[in-house]
């Protein structure tokens, strides 16, 4: 059996399965932004954008862009039936007020308590920027983080305590990576699935806090190769 870590697209494909039909969902930058393309055809998701859209559809086709209709990443998008426009303050009434069912953000570090660091690498050049990440993390009914399991230099990103500047404390519910699906619970991190071909022990080696699991851990369902 081949033993490849999942691609960013495959992480997105797996994360798409966490979105129930008719959910109100906000997707962040990076891998989360790839998820919309993998939502099954028979599922409708009402995507929220913090610049004032609920019910975002796919990217606008080339030649049909309307630059007054852009997502939070400045990309021209479309609407689906049932969409609405509103101001930035109403957009964050939705985030902070706990009205969004699921939010998916990228991550630099996640701690075993579900603390998230995702907006700044210490020592990075420039001013950095928080954007909507702190409001979204605090308010999401369920927060999923999608990211590579380890950094490029092999450093572990799922840690006992975050060392990077925090986005929010105790906010993450589920971590989906190129190696595993992990739930954050009051008893600690629970290994729910592993990438095809990987063992729980191999995932544990690349994860600082102790992972809980019993018996055979199922493999992540990935169709596209």
């Amino acid at each position, binding site marked *: 059996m081949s033993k490849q870590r999942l691609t960013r697209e495959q992480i997105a494909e797996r994360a798409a399965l966490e979105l129930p039909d008719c959910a109100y969902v906000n997707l962040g930058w990076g891998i989360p932004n790839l998820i919309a393309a993998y939502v099954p055809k028979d599922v409708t998701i009402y995507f929220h954008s*913090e610049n004032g859209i609920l019910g975002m559809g796919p990217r606008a086709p080339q030649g049909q862009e309307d630059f007054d209709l852009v997502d939070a990443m400045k990309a021209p998008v479309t609407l689906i039936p049932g969409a609405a*426009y*509103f101001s930035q303050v109403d957009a964050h009434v939705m985030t*902070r007020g706990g009205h969004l069912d699921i939010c998916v953000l990228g991550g630099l570090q996640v701690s075993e308590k579900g603390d998230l660091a995702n907006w700044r690498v210490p020592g990075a050049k420039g001013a950095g*920027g928080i954007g909507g990440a*702190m409001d979204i993390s605090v308010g999401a009914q369920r927060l999923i983080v999608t990211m590579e399991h380890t950094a490029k230099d092999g450093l572990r990103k799922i840690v006992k305590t975050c060392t990077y*500047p925090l986005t*929010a404390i105790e906010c993450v519910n589920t971590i989906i990576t190129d190696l595993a699906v992990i739930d954050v619970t009051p008893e600690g991190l629970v290994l729910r699935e592993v990438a095809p071909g990987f063992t729980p022990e191999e995932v544990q080696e690349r994860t600082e806090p102790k992972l809980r699991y019993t018996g055979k851990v199922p493999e992540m369902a990935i169709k596209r190769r």
Partner: protein
Amino acid sequence: MDRKNRVYPSVDESVADIPDGATIMFGGFGGAGFPNNLIQGLARRGARNLRVISNNCGTGDGELGILFKNRQIGHVVAAFPGPGATYFQQQFDAGDIDLELVPQGILCERMRAYGAGIPAFYSPVGVGTDVAKGKEERVIRGKRYILEQALGADYALIRAQRADRMGNLVYRKAARNFNPIMATAAKTTIVEVEEVVEIGALDPETVVTPSIFVDRIVVAKGLRYV
């Protein structure tokens, strides 16, 4: 001023009294809804040492970029200055600009509070992070919150699609973003619009910003920097 006609003859006249050191809010997000004509007018006016409140800090020379290029800005409150904010980043790295980084939803909620006469409010956003530094923390019904201060300005420079002569405003799509909130939080709100119509021509059901929040209107075709 004539409340039944708040239309100014030109962009330059609408910003002619903005002094050095003024605190100014600028609408716009992601390339949509920026008052680019008013920004260009402010660049021509040349007011300096401005305190700016804006989600981001320009894209090259576009949007707020020109004001940074001209070194007219000394202080910034922003949620996401942005990788395209070349002149801001240079001056920030050189230590020439003070920056207060604010979570985006808190940035607009602080404006909303100011416009609504609320001096400060408790918020869960940023608890336990750098954002909480120096702020009062309090536990309410078992949960931690920090105290955020209302945020107002001398001027709000905003963009809408259409106004009537009184200043009732209608926006277009996601170009609405920060604009209606800023209109409520400044002593003087100046709006650039594509089109002005007569009083009574806008359907009251569709007005997003009522005229009470608007002081000056100028007609200016959209400038866009993508």
